[in-house]
């Protein structure tokens, strides 16, 4: 873990060398999700509601998912860029070092410019929270934290899964986007608006429903049952992350260098 933070500080200093480029990129990163959010806002202003969900309720869902996504994109970016490590043969170097491959790949790349995205999602989240009549209790605050944390774990799992594919295909595949970008795009709305089968898939296979939709019900006071259950529900994301890490280990053992 200490090693990981050391990697971070090195990468941060190296990226700050190009300051203008850094700020331009950060700002650009802010604009992309902003456009998507503007689309959501315009749709609500035209249609009024989304199957019983108000704008701020949807915005809360949007904020949580985008915050989780941007944080995991910041910190797990190494896995996203993994195919380049394999293609260039750099991965061989990591293998001979006496440290876990997971930590090294995590630290190989770190995209601080993604903070733009983070700022945007934080703003949306704050705006939504201010405008929602939520009766705050410590348990609800905990739930909100757990939602973001759970989201980070799920996205990280997907990033790792995508990277593992590179061991077999060498090049990253666009299909991976279905789960990362597609998952984000989908989970930014309350899950119950989708077709039943889609909802089930994204609750029980990839537990987006457990970190966004179900705890959201509790936060908004729409849920029945004990609150603690909902607060702990995002923990199911660990059940998703563990097999992903296991697959990664299998992939590392299967790895054959490209020889370049």
């Amino acid at each position: 873990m200490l090693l990981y933070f050391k990697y971070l500080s090195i990468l941060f200093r190296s990226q700050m060398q190009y300051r203008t480029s850094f700020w331009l990129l950060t700002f650009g990163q802010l604009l992309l999700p902003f456009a998507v959010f503007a689309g959501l806002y315009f749709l609500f202003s035209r249609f009024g509601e989304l199957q019983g969900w108000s704008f701020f309720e949807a915005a809360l869902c949007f904020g949580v998912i985008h915050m989780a996504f941007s944080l995991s994109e910041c910190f797990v970016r190494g896995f996203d860029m993994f195919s380049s490590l394999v293609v260039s043969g750099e991965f061989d170097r990591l293998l001979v070092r006496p440290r876990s491959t997971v930590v090294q790949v995590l630290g190989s790349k770190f995209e601080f410019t993604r903070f733009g995205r983070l700022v945007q999602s934080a703003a949306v989240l704050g705006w939504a929270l201010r405008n929602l009549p939520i009766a705050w209790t410590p348990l609800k605050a905990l739930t909100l934290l757990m939602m973001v944390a759970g989201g980070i774990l799920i996205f990280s799992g997907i990033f790792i899964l995508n990277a593992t594919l590179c061991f077999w295909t060498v090049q990253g595949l666009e299909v991976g986007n279905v789960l990362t970008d597609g998952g984000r795009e989908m989970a930014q709305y309350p899950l119950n608006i989708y077709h039943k089968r889609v909802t089930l898939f994204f609750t029980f296979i990839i537990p987006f429903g457990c970190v966004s939709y179900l705890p959201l019900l509790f936060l908004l006071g729409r849920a029945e049952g004990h609150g603690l259950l909902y607060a702990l529900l995002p923990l199911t994301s660990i059940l998703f992350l563990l097999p992903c890490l296991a697959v990664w280990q299998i992939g590392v053992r299967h790895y054959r260098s490209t020889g370049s």
Partner: protein
Amino acid sequence: MKMYLSVAKLRFVTNLQYRTAAFAGIVTQLFFGFIFIMVYVAFYSRSSAAPPMSLQEVVTYIWLQQMFLGLIALYFRDPDIFELITGGNIAYELCRPCGIYGFWFTKVLATRVSGVVLRCFPVLLIVLLLPEPYGMSLPPGIGAFLLFLLSLFLGLLMVCAISLLIYISIFWTMSPAGSILMVAAAGEFLAGMILPIPLMPGWMQQLANLLPFRWTVDFPFRVYTGNIPVEEALMGNLVQLFWLALLIGLGLLLISRALRRVVVQGG
């Protein structure tokens, strides 16, 4: 002319090699199409006032968007051209016996077309056969269809001209990423890539009408769905031609300026 054709052909054949990537693209596009449609279905299900676009029109719009993503998306960029400018190999490019603008234009055009050709037909076949409300509908008449093809083609040329303007800007900025991201984000929104223009509020529509972007995406697609009637579409084609001339003229002007002060970086 023959030279440009062979550039296009070469680029085309190279891109056709990536068949697995195309298959992956098809799956991705179908998935995203479904997600977007489900969101719209949910919005439309409780709508009291009649929206300016029917759900069927929106669904068709989304499928067209997914099919022709490669033709219209502004964020697609050609890494080769960046390399040329920032890496210094632009010097070779200048030795070629043809205009650099036309050469790059052909290259960008061929890349976009070849990227789409492999993908759009399988997707088209699937989405035409899908059940309600996910299926894509046919255009209202042969006239609308032909005009759609024409306006899509003109829109494509406009997108290439815009991309080239972005590339040319690298001569001044030297770092592509930030500025492209901004132009792409704003441009795609104003083109109707995130939501169709008629669903935007009035002031946003006015803004979109003043800029070239909506003529690349929103206009051709609404001609296909019949949301824009045939007579209006013909007028629209003229506007497209006007913008195209303007964008290309600007590109030619800027590139001649840039080349006069070009500094070849290193060897």
